[in-house]
């Protein structure tokens, strides 16, 4: 394969990683029935805190930990407001988005445009030597490898373990989960915080790796909304969510490449709109009856798998409150 093409794919995987981690985090939260709408602001604030903590301490690891704590704390506010105080999760999340983004600009004003620690590539021996896939997937940073683990780990947790059944049940029908022994609200707290911490990790992945450093306006602004859209596009299924994140990063790379080619004259704005149009079309396809009709022609074992993969209903109890008796 053309080495330049391999380079492009390698950078797509790298650039997609924060989106992957953030949307996996949000998938966990929403599977538990809680909406963390603060993603955009959370990413920005945790990116800033991650960079500053790494800069001050000189350690990227400390930066990552700090960013995860910030993401987890923001999620905790949403959990307290939505579960304990029984307020509207969407409203709290929205306000937090605005607040945290401004907070990042304010608190980070003395740290803009300075070099700081970065997470470097660490190719995995042997695996990196596999033709084509090796240099694309295994010549990356540790964060990218962690994102792979998250994808498969979440899939296994959701669909192959007992606690995973409980996680899905509290987001689908909390009354049933309660009847079968789950402490619904405590679990919702737990998964909201875990999801938020992953969003924080995604923020650190920006400021310590993908777009190193801190600047105003923040370079990752808007990506939180994209991650939220990817969760919906991905039908709350880890594999599809990841596919969405890679697809989005791929389209972005394509639009950058086209902009650099003077022979092609397409408006940048138009190019940037393509991913959204594509998402709407996919959502329409999935929610129309077309998929079900397609399924009936497939062989039976494949039907079940495909249906599960293409399922696009949100968790039935998403954003609702549950009162334990």
């Amino acid at each position, binding site marked *: 394969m053309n080495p330049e093409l391999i380079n492009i794919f390698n950078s797509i995987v790298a650039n997609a990683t924060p989106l992957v981690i953030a949307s996996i985090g949000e998938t966990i939260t929403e599977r538990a029935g809680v909406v963390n709408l603060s993603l955009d602001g959370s990413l920005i604030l945790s990116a800033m805190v991650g960079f500053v903590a790494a800069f001050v301490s000189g350690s990227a690891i400390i930066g990552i930990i700090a960013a995860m704590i910030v993401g987890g704390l923001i999620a905790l506010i949403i959990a307290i407001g939505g579960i304990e105080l029984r307020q509207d999760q969407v409203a709290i999340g929205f306000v937090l988005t605005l607040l945290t983004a401004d907070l990042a600009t304010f608190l980070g004003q003395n740290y803009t445009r300075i070099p700081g620690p970065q997470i470097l590539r660490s190719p995995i021996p042997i695996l990196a030597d596999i033709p084509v896939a090796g240099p694309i997937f295994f010549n990356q940073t540790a964060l990218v490898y962690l994102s792979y683990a998250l994808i498969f780990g979440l899939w296994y947790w959701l669909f*192959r*373990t*007992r*606690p995973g*059944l*409980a996680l*899905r*049940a509290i987001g*689908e*029908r909390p*009354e*049933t*989960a*309660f*009847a*079968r*022994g789950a402490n619904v609200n405590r679990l919702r707290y737990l998964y909201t915080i875990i999801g938020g911490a992953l969003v924080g990790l995604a923020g650190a992945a920006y400021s310590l790796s993908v777009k190193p450093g801190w600047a105003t306006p923040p370079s990752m602004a808007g990506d939180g909304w994209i991650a939220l859209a990817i969760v919906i596009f991905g039908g709350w299924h880890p594999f599809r969510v990841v596919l969405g994140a890679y697809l989005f990063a791929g389209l972005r790379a394509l639009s950058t490449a086209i902009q650099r080619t003077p022979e092609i004259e397409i408006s940048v704005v138009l190019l940037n709109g393509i991913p959204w149009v594509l998402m709407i079309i996919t959502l329409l396809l999935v929610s129309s009856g077309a998929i079900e009709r397609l399924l009936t022609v497939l062989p039976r074992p494949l039907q*079940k798998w495909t*249906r599960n993969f293409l*399922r696009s*209903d949100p*968790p*039935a109890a998403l954003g609702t409150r549950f009162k334990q*008796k």
Partner: protein
Amino acid sequence: MGLVMNIELKHIHKRFGAVHANNDINLTFATGRIVGILGENGAGKSTLMKILSGFQSMDSGEIWLDGKPVSYNGPQAAIAHGIGMLQQDPLDVGAFTVLENFIYGQPGNLSPKRKVAQQQLEKLSQRFGFELDPDMPVSQLSIGQRQQLEIVRLLALGVRTLILDEPTTGISTEQKTLLFDALRELAAKDSMTVLLVSHKLEDVIALCHEVAVLRAGRIVGSMDMPATTTELVTLMFGQELAAQPRQPINANSDDAVLALHKVQLRNKRMKIDNISLRVRAGEIIGLAGLDGSGQEMLLRACVGLEKCSRGQIDIAGRDMTGKSYREFLQTGVAFGAAGRLEEGLVAGLTLTEHIALVTSHQSFIDWNSARQHTEDQIKHYNVRGRPESRIETLSGGNQQRVLMALMPQEPVLMALEQPTRGLDVDSARWIWQQLIERRKGGTAIIFSSPDLDELVTYSDRIIVFCGGWVQEVADMENLTLDELGRMIGGEGVIQ
């Protein structure tokens, strides 16, 4: 198999606000028996079973299993003690597959053994002839299949006592046969205790070894089967109050206010054919029948909320068949739903806002006069509340008074679902005084009620609904509660 399990309930009390849902309940269930828990809606039977199965806490009382007192918090703990309950709407997860639902809640390691669980599921399903596809999403199952899944799930958890809440509502005849066969086998071969909560007498007669009857939160009797419908109905409704003399019919003309011509009504569960009825001005028509026998459907058809699949409805001489609720309202009918806060009133709005909603027809409301009007109405209808009180803060009786205040002053016809539901004796009597006042002005009233006493006391004529049939009581003069109860239970129906 055949572990013995004896259940004793001792002095169980449960209150919901002013309602004493369970009042000093003492009951014993022996192993291997199928026991019917009978009672009208609101008698407290579901509450009692929810307490026994851990879904509801009790205020005071004790549960003894095999001679030892137990206490548990939550359904999971009750299952650990061997008591499982199948809810009317089975508590499962629609997004899960059958197998996932079966596994979820079973104790075990982090990662469940799907193969083993699937074999267990298939073995149990086969035993009772249930057809459950392990890979099917639960959202695609019928209620009957979801019940089957819940039963095998509870059995796999080692439940020794199975409680079923109205299990025959919404399932097919074949599924009912399958279910009853399974329950009989469980009682006979596995000496399980089966408790069947129901108000369907035919189910109880077909299945149970004994019955316990609740009325208004108390156990009013129990008996061994077989028993006749009459005996059960007598227990369910009681007959301590003798029928009072009725007011003479005060109809001033022979013209029908409401006329039904060979109307057919149908929904998913039933079909009622050939209802013909003429209601004159000033007449009060009572609709009797066990819950869900079609009385509500007919009431709603009279105001255009339910479409008749055949036949004709006239209001004050005009053909209204197929017309909308709005058009019915314009002819001068009024409707009062049983679910006051769900359908009749708007939770979150104040009394003044309610009055303004029905009296003010301009875009801008004159709040001063609306408030004045509300104060007048509060005085007139003796409502305990202020113009600025939100409606849901009022008691049921006061809500019903507000509902009366919101109705047009002199409607041609009032259709009322259980007009005194949940009201104390005083409020109920007051509501009827108001209704009788309006009747003197020529308003015809058609109402449904689960209270036989209320039906016999206030109706000029009574229509009995039973198993898809309607029948008018022929001899109102000599009607006793007992006779009416028998008709509701399905005796003496002319088909």
